């Protein structure tokens, strides 16, 4: 969360087309070129459920400061075609100040789009592309957009060349000619929407998605093994881990289902390797029995849940926070474990790495609640600082003449874990209630004592300041978690301009519930707006089950798939009749 240095400027561009028309590629090129020019930005992709031939939209926002969410409306919309545009309309907010560029030889702008009152310009996209051997409309679109928003031509060209290099010299040449044609055409549309004050720093900038960042964080934290079953929108976590682990001597195995992937993860960790799997809601539902096994047998594992719209198959390609309940309460029996949530795309790296550290330090399953809006967003960030959290498991070192008790009581509740191959450390890990030795037991004492131990070890752990990010001051508080943080920060900035001061508390540690830390941070709070992206208001229910919140509490929650925007949050504050 970096403080604004210069006046905030941002410009938003949408490029849409049929699946395969290259809208997403065009968006990526704009984003990367902007990054090379010293801008920040992010890109969300909106795609239909079709494998190919559906609709695809790239939503790109560029700014002179880091941004974590989309703007309220688009300044520029370039439509390669209008197929299935009605499915996009809800996500394409336009105003009379917006500019729409559309193929002058193509179909008319649909009413749902033109009713915005935006200016419409016709560009012969297809004809222009046809004139260039190997020319493509999406590259013309890149040139148009780059010209109108004033992106550096050199940077656009270098990104295009890098992207097309593997397709050969002819493709690169065609790409360049298309961009030039688009740039020339853009001169006909003068818009004052280019970003004037570019923030220059010496920092390296990164271009990364939340799914890549959480995986990188995990590997940096010490993950050596991953088990994978593909599921939208988590698959990229696993795909990235597959090649990354191979490069550093780890391994990923593709499992036959999530029942298998979670158990492979447990098995590998039992063998002494820090282990991870990633999934989304339906997969998490299949895994919960075995998460209970890891909890009871005290085997550290990390499960990344990239949440999507639920319940059931829900909306696989879009975001929601509605796995909160299953992540916290899903296991049968009393099975306290760790649940953490990244607060931004960049924070996926920190939280992913921290999760490995927590799991390993406490020998406990740790669920990372990311979501589609973080996982599949591609964003420009300052190179993240190195984080000093690593897998550091307390292991058993044989002592001559001493019997080993796997589940021995210790001051911090974490027992030294014997890794197979260690002489004298043999034990049987068990999901049955067990004695300190690990022997199955049905006695009151063993049950109570082992439950106490597993509870205490995570409740008494020192999570430091990382349980939340706190921004701003005052007695008007926004209390939220996970991906809502980006929109809340932007709402804070907008409200500050109106003289409304907000204190934002964004929780990264969900379970065990950081009650003392939260109540301490809420001291002096008069009005608390609780926000989450669930139909039921799961976060508010969870907070109220865990503690009594001080002051007036208002609960703002709604289902996805449209992510909660800064304007919605600002409106909740403005419309709240508080004294």
């Amino acid at each position, binding site marked *: 969360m970096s403080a604004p240095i210069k006046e905030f400027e941002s410009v938003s561009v949408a490029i849409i087309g049929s699946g395969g028309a290259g809208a997403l590629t065009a968006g990526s090129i704009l984003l*990367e070129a902007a*990054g*090379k020019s010293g801008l920040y930005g992010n890109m969300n992709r909106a795609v239909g459920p079709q494998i190919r031939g559906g609709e695809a939209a790239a939503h790109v926002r560029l700014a002179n400061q880091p941004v974590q969410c989309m703007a309220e409306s688009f300044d520029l919309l370039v439509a390669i075609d209008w197929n299935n545009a009605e499915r996009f309309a809800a996500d394409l907010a336009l105003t009379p100040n917006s500019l729409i560029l559309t193929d002058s030889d193509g179909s008319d702008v649909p009413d749902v789009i033109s009713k915005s009152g935006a200016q419409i310009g016709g560009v012969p996209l297809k004809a222009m592309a046809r004139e260039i051997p190997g020319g493509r409309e999406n590259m013309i679109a890149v040139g148009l957009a780059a010209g109108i928003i004033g992106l550096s031509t050199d940077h656009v060209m270098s990104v295009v060349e890098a992207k097309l290099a593997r397709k050969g010299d002819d493709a690169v040449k065609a790409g360049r000619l298309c961009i030039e044609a688009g740039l020339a055409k853009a001169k006909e549309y003068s818009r004052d929407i280019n970003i004037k004050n570019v923030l220059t720093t010496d920092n*390296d900038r*990164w*271009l990364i998605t939340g799914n*890549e960042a959480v995986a*990188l964080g995990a*590997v*940096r934290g010490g993950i*050596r*093994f991953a*088990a994978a079953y593909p599921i939208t929108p988590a698959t990229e976590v696993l795909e990235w881990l597959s090649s*990354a682990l191979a*490069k*550093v*001597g*780890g*391994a*990923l*195995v593709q*499992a*036959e289902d999530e*029942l*298998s*992937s979670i*158990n*492979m993860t*447990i*098995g*590998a*960790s*039992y*063998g*002494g*390797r820090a*282990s991870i799997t990633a999934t989304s809601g339906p997969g998490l539902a299949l895994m919960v*029995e*075995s998460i209970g*096994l890891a909890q009871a*047998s005290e085997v550290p594992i990390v499960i990344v849940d990239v949440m999507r719209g639920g319940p059931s198959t829900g909306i696989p390609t879009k975001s929601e926070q509605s796995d909160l309940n299953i992540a916290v309460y899903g296991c049968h029996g009393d099975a306290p474990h760790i649940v953490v949530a990244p607060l931004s795309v960049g924070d996926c790296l920190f939280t992913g790495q921290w999760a490995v550290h927590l799991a390993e330090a406490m020998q406990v399953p740790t669920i990372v609640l990311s979501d589609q809006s973080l996982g599949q967003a591609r964003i*420009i960030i300052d*190179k993240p600082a190195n984080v000093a959290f690593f897998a550091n498991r307390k292991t058993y070192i044989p002592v001559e003449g001493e019997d080993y008790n796997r589940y021995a009581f210790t001051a911090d509740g974490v027992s030294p874990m*014997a890794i*197979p*191959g*260690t*002489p*004298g*450390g*043999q*034990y*049987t*890990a*068990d*999901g*049955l209630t067990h004695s300190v030795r*690990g*022997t*199955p037991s049905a006695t009151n004492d063993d049950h109570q004592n082992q439950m106490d131990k597993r509870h205490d070890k995570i409740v008494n752990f020192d999570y430091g300041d990382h349980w939340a990010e706190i921004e701003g001051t005052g007695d008007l508080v926004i209390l939220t978690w996970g991906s809502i943080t980006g929109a809340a920060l932007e709402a804070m900035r907008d409200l500050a301009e109106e003289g409304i001061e907000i204190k934002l508390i964004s929780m990264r540690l969900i379970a065990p519930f950081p009650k003392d830390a939260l109540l301490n941070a809420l001291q002096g709070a008069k009005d608390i707006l609780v926000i989450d992206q669930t139909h039921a208001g799961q976060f508010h229910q969870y907070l109220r089950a865990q503690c009594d919140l001080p002051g007036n509490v208002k609960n703002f929650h709604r289902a996805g798939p449209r992510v909660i925007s800064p304007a919605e949050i600002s409106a909740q504050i403005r419309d709240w009749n508080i004294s």
Partner: protein
Amino acid sequence: MNAPTKTSYKPGDYKSDLTPVWCPGCGDFHVLMSVTRAMAQLGNAPEDVAVISGIGCSSRIPAYTNCYGFHGVHGRSLALASGLKVARPDLTVMVMSGDGDGFSIGGNHFLHACRRNIDMTYIVMDNRVYGMTKGQPSPTTEPDWDSALSPGGTGLNPFHPLVIALASGANFVARTFSGDIKGTANTIVEAVKHPGFSFVQILSPCVTFRPDEKEWKNIVHPASVEPTDDAARAARRIMTDDGFNVGVLYRGDRKPYGNHVSDTVGNMDILEEEFVL
């Protein structure tokens, strides 16, 4: 990982001091004897052997050994063991299951473990009944076997786990009888030594819920032909035998799964290069 504690072992070195929960006369006692005998013959230190199981009478076996063990959830032993072996290829991994745990709730993992061909040994104690839940029919139970859950029988034909293993790609397939402790031990030794995924079905009578299985000792007979490396031929033999043909039935030479975690960690810095603008 560590130097072995001894240079030679006896079966007793692989036994723990726990008393099994099994009923007197259960075939699984004999399986435990065969397993520890096989371990002694193989000569791996107990700490270098991992015995992985799910849930059921058979799956209680890890704690009765003096090896590293994992008594996991119902049906998932092969998955857990697969993760372990990929993470720790230096260990000898033995997976112990029953006909309910292995063929019913764990059926999908059985297919894919055979197909994946990770170098480990899968031992299923088949008594054609769920014993721990007190007598329900399993996938290998005869169609007319009467029980409270399926009065008059299920009416379903049992399936052929050995044929399914062959069709799915297992590299070594054998059937033994628990009462033949020495023969079973020898087969387990061979299975562990054979590269890739080895499957041993042990006919192990349940004297409590299937007292009729006490007769098995009089019915089993050695396979009358030599093991084959032709999966189709092996499958035909198994499909047409009487189900009591014991011995090694198939030895394949398919390449075992090769992906595993190495002890050395590579340079992490290269991982971030792709993200730098």
